[in-house]
């Protein structure tokens, strides 16, 4: 796609009919968890969308987030989203290496000052920046340098969003989240270990379609995908209501598909779209496969007790911990909401200017 083209022109030049475009818009609206009535609005916005520049930085991570994304639904509908962005730097996927690659990043930053989207996966070691470097540049310096002129940051994965596994106790590298370092840019946290690929694509689609920051929850996550907890959307919820629980992974209850709460399912405190968007091309999600949710999209999930401990017995669920967490959560929520709101306002004001 040429930089002077909008998406509508680009699709027509590729032989995509209006019917194909409407299909693309329907799938994109569904991807963004928008109601089907929004398709006309999506079509109008997408037809006029320009190609945004995206710079993707990978820090202390396992590449699972990139794997998740690149193994997402294959062509054609979703790949158009990627055709429609200019992925100017991604050191796992790009062919260039060394100084050439870094020069490309710097050039993209300069050329798209104030307009590019910075995607980050992985946490940032701050105890000793030398723990993780790229081309001799510490993650900390690279993040600061790339963030200063970006439009917004998408923190992909729980490591970038909340510190994740590198930040788990005893946190040997002093790993922190992007939002612990960058405080003057809008940050969208797409948490998960890894995040659902279509949620990553959905956030990029939102930028592409509306050019704005999506509505965020108290932890900076898009409410379209993180607005409801797994438990409320779980098809096993009726068993929970009736008190029908699997006690072991091979008992009668497990075979009958009963609720996995007693086997450590963290669905009741986990906000994500797994129960509806699902994984592997909509095939299923962990609970559907017979394993409880491990709360991978929540902060500090590694340090909250055993994955197989019921919420009522683990660190998530003792009365004291729950009360403490609720208090801290409320305080954090208010602070984050204020931050998110002011960031959003600023971004929107900058966009209008």
């Amino acid at each position: 796609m040429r930089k002077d083209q909008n998406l509508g022109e680009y699709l027509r030049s590729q032989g995509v009919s209006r019917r194909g475009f409407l299909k693309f818009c329907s799938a994109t609206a569904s991807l963004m968890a928008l109601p089907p009535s929004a398709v006309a609005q999506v079509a109008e916005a997408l037809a006029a969308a320009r190609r945004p520049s995206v710079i993707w930085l990978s820090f202390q991570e396992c590449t699972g987030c990139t794997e998740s994304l690149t193994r997402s639904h294959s062509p054609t509908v979703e790949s158009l989203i990627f055709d429609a962005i200019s992925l100017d730097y991604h050191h796992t996927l790009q062919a260039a290496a060394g100084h050439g690659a870094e020069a490309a990043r710097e050039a993209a930053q300069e050329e798209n000052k104030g307009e590019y989207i910075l995607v980050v996966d992985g946490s940032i070691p701050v105890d000793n920046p030398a723990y993780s470097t790229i081309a001799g540049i510490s993650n900390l310096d690279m993040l600061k340098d790339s963030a200063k002129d970006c439009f917004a940051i998408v923190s992909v994965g729980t490591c970038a969003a909340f510190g994740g596994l590198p930040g788990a106790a005893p946190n040997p590298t002093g790993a922190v989240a992007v939002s612990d370092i960058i405080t003057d840019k809008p940050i969208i946290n797409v948490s998960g270990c890894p995040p659902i690929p279509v949620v990553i694509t959905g956030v990029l689609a939102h930028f592409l379609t509306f050019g704005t920051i999506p509505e965020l929850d108290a932890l900076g996550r898009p409410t379209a995908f993180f607005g409801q907890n797994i438990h409320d959307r779980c098809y096993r919820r009726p068993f929970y209501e009736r008190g029908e629980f699997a006690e072991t992974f091979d008992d009668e209850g497990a075979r009958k598909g009963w609720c996995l709460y007693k086997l450590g399912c963290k669905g009741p405190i986990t906000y994500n779209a797994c129960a509806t968007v699902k994984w592997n091309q909509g095939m299923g999600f962990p609970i559907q496969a017979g394993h409880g949710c491990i709360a991978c999209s929540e902060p500090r999930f590694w340090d909250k007790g055993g994955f197989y401990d019921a919420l009522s017995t683990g660190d998530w669920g003792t009365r004291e911990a729950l009360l403490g967490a609720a208090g801290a959560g409320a305080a954090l929520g208010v602070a984050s909401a204020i931050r998110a709101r002011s960031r959003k306002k600023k971004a929107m004001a900058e966009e209008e200017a």
Partner: protein
Amino acid sequence: MSSLDTIPVTTEVATGNVEPLLHEIRHALKRLAGGEQGTTIDLKSLPLAPGEEERIEATLGTGEVRAEVDALGPTLIRETSYPGVWLITHKNADNAVVARFIEVTYIPELLRSQPEDIDAGIDRLESELRT
């Protein structure tokens, strides 16, 4: 080695969402018949247990019209046994489902020829006749 079929796992789980969805379709159909606008339901938007989507499909049945649109991968459009209720399945080029909708309408928008495509067709036909 035993086959997967021999593992005694049952999937008779019900969310209780199938009947409300069918009632939603009934209400939408009545609105359409009463001269109001059509309704589109995204099947991904509500939790369904394994087998429940198939149950919805089986209840709606198959009607008189089936069509396949070949644009960015196949889209299967089928009128159910209830006239005005259409099941639309968008697939990508690898035949994987990317979205599923129930449309309550006289004719799904995707089946109509689109003005932009008609204009492009006129250009092509005129060009063909000039040569």
